[in-house]
């Protein structure tokens, strides 16, 4: 990278796009990080944040980054999987039992090597450590094992990761648009949905009659922060240091706030009559085995390598 010294009138506007709504912690974290960077760089680096997919998001957002736009994309690591296929191994279902397992994993050489390889595709990964919670099974009847899920229609987002995950777990995955989901649950078009406790409380999912939460933790919602490598290298060194520091700090703080809030949210959900159930993780994981198989482009044995790292942490 270059190390030009910043002149006094250096000024760069970066547009940061994500899909979260302004009330969510991830939104607040991004606004705070942008504000701190603006202050610490004396206005040289202005990051404008755009919530709720107002700007291109998901694949489109990452594409802006890859194609060299002055753009920061905040998406889950599976979207980088299109460029570094091994990344998909970080976003398989039921990998992690806690937030720490994930953030420890991202610091390993295994993942740092993936991050380095992303740069060859033009993507500078500032951090992978933003977390927005585990997704669980929310249903009318308690779900503790694959047998409980058999034949149940569960609403999922319309992507193959979710469809395959829920189908393998025993359910019938039903991809519905979010806007039609709550009435579909309430009126029995589907038997339930999957999502975090924050989704549950924020949308009053419990009012639909789906008051049982099976703590499957089948997907850990995480986000990375991505910027184009040439745009990145064009930023004076002193500012790059600040940007990287602040995004990391924001991730750590955000995860802490999330953990603190989660306990309160669980308590509030319980006060609305929601019941939480631990699930038979081993039984579900056995059924998900077909999803821990490398697909085209992935390094053979990458899943084993990830599991080895996780096992090492659990000892």
């Amino acid at each position: 990278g270059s190390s030009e010294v910043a002149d006094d009138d250096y000024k760069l506007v970066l547009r940061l796009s994500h899909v979260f709504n302004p009330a969510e912690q991830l939104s607040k974290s991004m606004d705070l990080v942008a504000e701190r960077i603006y202050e610490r760089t004396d206005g040289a680096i202005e990051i404008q944040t755009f919530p709720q997919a107002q700007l291109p998001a998901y694949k489109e957002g990452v594409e802006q980054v890859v194609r060299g736009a002055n753009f920061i994309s905040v998406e889950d690591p599976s979207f980088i999987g299109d460029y570094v296929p091994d990344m998909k191994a970080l976003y398989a279902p039921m990998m992690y039992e806690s937030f720490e397992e994930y953030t420890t994993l991202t610091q390993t050489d295994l993942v740092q090597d993936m991050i380095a390889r992303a740069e060859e595709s033009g993507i500078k990964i500032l951090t992978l450590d933003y977390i927005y919670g585990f997704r669980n099974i929310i249903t009318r009847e308690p779900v503790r094992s694959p047998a409980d899920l058999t034949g149940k229609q569960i609403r999922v987002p319309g992507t193959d990761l979710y469809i395959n995950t829920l189908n393998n777990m025993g359910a019938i995955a039903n991809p519905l648009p979010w806007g039609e989901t709550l009435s579909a649950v309430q009126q029995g078009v589907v038997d339930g949905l999957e999502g975090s406790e924050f989704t549950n409380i924020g949308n009053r999912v419990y009012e639909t009659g789906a008051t049982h939460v099976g703590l499957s933790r089948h997907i850990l919602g995480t986000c990375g922060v991505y910027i184009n490598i040439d745009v990145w290298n064009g930023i004076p060194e002193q500012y790059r240091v600040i940007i990287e520091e602040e995004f990391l700090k924001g991730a750590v703080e955000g995860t802490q706030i999330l953990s603190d809030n989660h306990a309160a949210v669980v308590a509030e959900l319980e006060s609305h009559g929601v019941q939480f159930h631990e699930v038979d993780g081993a039984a579900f994981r056995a059924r998900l085995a077909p999803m821990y198989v490398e697909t085209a482009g992935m390094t053979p044995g990458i899943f084993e390598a990830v599991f080895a790292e996780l096992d090492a942490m659990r000892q």
Partner: protein
Amino acid sequence: MAIFPIVIVMALYVSSIPIAFALIAAALAYFTFGDVGSPPDLILQTFITSASSFPLLAVPFFIMVGEIMNFSGISASLMKMADVLTGHMKGGLAQVNVVLSTMMGGISGSANADAAMQSKILVPEMEKRGYSAAFSTAITAASSSIAPVIPPGINLIIYALIAQVSVARMFIGGYMPGILMAIALMVTVHIIAVRRGYKPVRDKMSPPGEIFKQLKHSIWALLLPFGIILGIRFGVFTPTEAGAIAVVFCTVVGVFFYKELRWHHFPIIMRNTVYATSAVILIIVAASIFGRYLSWERIPFLLTRSLMGFAAEPWMMLIVINIFLLAMGMFLEGGAVLIIVAPLLVPVVTAMGVHPVHFGLILIVNIMIGGITPPFGSMMFTTCSITGVPISDFIKEVYPFIIALVIVLIVITYVPGLAMFLPNLL
């Protein structure tokens, strides 16, 4: 803040470039020549993402329903029903005109389709019975504004998508404003009919036997709106699927019950559906692309901030917005106003505590009034071009109806409980 794309849209639009292409051209100019920091071909993704929305499919479905109705005898059956119910009132056929639009509104969602059909069927009939062509045209245009407000309606769906509220709640919410509009127009018709001495179509109220007989014939047509709402309510299908089911239902009724729908009608139905769908959706796509420019420049954010400084209280804000929308509606097409303005205003009013469903109903009633207001009202154009009434004559006859509808708008705006009573039950 780059505003040259807005200038380009206006310039191209008044030079007779269709609005969809004006919006696309302005957005492309921005992403090519503006200080954007992003390659221009990436904006093309928005063509695909904006059109690949499942709830949007309700639009072609309900357009197709409207087309099928005209060939299947459903429209004709509803017309007879309206005649039996209101034919005895003073200004009978004018009342039929209003009631027919209200009933048609329960099945289709297009004001222009309604206006076109009734200009062809009802206006000549009204002229025969002594109503002036201008009055007949004015009440046809004015009452056609009811059809999209009564569910189902394309604007209700599009607004639900933009504001991220449930389509079912918007649908339920449409009933009260739609019925109030019908009542307001019927009262206005009555006052005019008394003053001018317009005669009823039939001497006295239809006997129960005749009403019952007609009801038996029209029951299939009348069942559809109930079926749609009940089906959505009890989870048999989603609002989008309701459109597809309605297509099947109308076809079955047309073929087996009214026995008027024939094989050779289908190519015409498909052709007309394709024309209307492509024209409408292309504008939605183009508006999304133009919306990318707006958000890229943070214009919604800046507009929100300045509007909030301008009117601090929700009731003041609603006055400002209603006047702003009525003014826009006079010059722009209603659907275009909705698509361009809703994404800007919804965050503003919700931040001030106005419920997005309530605001959606205000917005939709407002733009429907724009459709009958000169100089660019779309239903005004549709009816006048079919009946051949000069715009100047139309204006003289339509203004009482505009006043009636504005009163309804004010009531809906400032009595939120009236509009929100039904959605809150859901």
